[in-house]
């Protein structure tokens, strides 16, 4: 009996299995997108917004479902994506740069920039330095003065080790020539922000989008932006460079879509042509703006260049750590 079923199954597979994804009829079923952070986090929330129009006829024509695989600063999700995800074009992933590149340089994971094929970038979220609303510190100079007087005693939170916030923290230590106490939070950006608001730590590095909302709610002050230029959301907050610290945009959190290596070229081409257009949809832009999330759309070629450049800067920065 079982043999018969197995035989029938094989025959059926042979009949239908030849319908390979060649780009013409792709996609013919719903697509899934893996986010390696928990539901409700900044990456998850933005991923849900930018994919909401995927089902439209002028986009992919099929909906994209978000699936969360959180853990260990994204390592769990990206490890799964590099080693177990099917490279058939129906499994997309969200990337966070510099996180996954820094983690792959540090080692202990099964992925690197060579494991993934970028499709398009949707957002760039710079890191900012925040302190609680009732803190005495009002500028980066106050922060660094305190750190100079009390080496290693300035506690400040961030989303984890070898993520954008940690990169920013390392850059700050290097540029200001001080020793700080970086406290990685296992609950990510939200947990790190809570530690600042509750006074568990004296300050923190966090996402601009989350800090913008927290400042609007009156719970934190933003002292500086880890980027090369001021941000449209925070025109009054100076960059680190303006305050005299030589820090570039290496920690800016780029978020976008990728597929595993080995995905058919036709599928990659189709996605690379469609997805950036999908991000440009007016409704997407409106929802992103309402949420305080800066958009930054980049095509596949631009992302490839950006990945290569980040790989270089981060290798230098993380040397000897």
């Amino acid at each position, binding site marked *: 009996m079982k043999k018969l*079923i197995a035989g029938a*199954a094989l025959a*059926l*597979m042979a009949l*239908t*299995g030849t319908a390979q994804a060649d780009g013409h009829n792709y996609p013919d079923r*719903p697509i*899934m997108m893996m986010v390696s952070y928990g539901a409700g986090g900044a990456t998850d929330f933005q991923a849900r917004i930018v994919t909401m129009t995927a089902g439209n006829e002028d986009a992919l024509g099929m909906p994209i*479902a978000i*699936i969360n695989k959180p853990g260990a600063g994204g390592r769990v999700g990206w490890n799964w994506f590099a080693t177990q995800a099917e490279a058939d074009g129906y499994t997309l992933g969200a990337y966070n740069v510099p996180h996954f590149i820094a983690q792959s340089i540090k080692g202990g994971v099964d992925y690197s920039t060579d494991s993934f094929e970028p499709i398009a970038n949707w957002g760039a979220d710079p890191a900012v330095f925040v302190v609680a609303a009732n803190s005495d510190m009002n500028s980066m100079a106050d922060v660094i003065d305190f750190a100079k007087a009390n080496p290693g005693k300035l506690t400040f939170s961030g989303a984890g080790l070898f993520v954008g916030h940690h990169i920013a923290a390392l850059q700050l230590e290097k540029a200001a020539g001080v020793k700080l106490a970086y406290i990685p939070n296992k609950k990510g950006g939200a947990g790190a922000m809570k530690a600042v608001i509750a006074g568990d730590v004296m300050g923190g590095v966090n996402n601009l989008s989350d800090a913008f909302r927290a400042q609007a709610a009156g719970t934190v002050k933003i002292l500086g932006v880890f980027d090369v230029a001021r941000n449209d959301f925070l025109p009054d907050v100076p960059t680190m460079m303006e305050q005299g610290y030589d820090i570039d945009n290496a920690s800016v959190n780029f978020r976008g879509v990728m597929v595993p290596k080995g995905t058919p070229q036709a599928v990659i081409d189709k996605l690379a042509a469609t997805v950036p257009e999908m991000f440009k949809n007016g409704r997407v832009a409106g929802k992103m703006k309402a949420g305080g999330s800066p958009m930054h759309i980049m095509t596949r070629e631009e992302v490839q260049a950006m990945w290569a450049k980040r790989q270089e800067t981060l290798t230098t920065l993380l040397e000897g750590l």
Partner: protein
Amino acid sequence: MTRWQHIIPPAVLTLVGLWVCYVSYTSEPAAAFLFPRIVATVFAVLAVWGLASAVLGDGSGNQGISAQMFRNMLPGIVVGAIYIFWAAKGLGFYTATALSTFVLVALYDPAPHNRLWTWGKRFAITAVFVAVMYLLFSVLLNVYTPKEKLF
């Protein structure tokens, strides 16, 4: 056998406990294994304690498994393991569920095997259950299930 059965679980737990201890005290980086070391130590001590009291005859809460029970459950476990470890992904969720439900109902339903209506009833149970699952998960909620060619 039945007299000594109750020693098996604490013995297995002791072995696991000692292994966990060994791994957490020897692995690097040590900083990541600080908490596992505390847990492993308490785990191993409690497991040895549990083993000792089991050997000395503490029988609190022991129900044991009779040979008859073991014979009863074995086919079910085998079918369940095939269903979960292979069929669900190999055949597709709904096909595998239909097969496993039908086989399990046939295995454990006390109705006589040599009557036609028994088999009709078993078939009906399977069909209704799979239909309800399909309608709820696939049509109504549109959630993912392990998929292969035979849906």
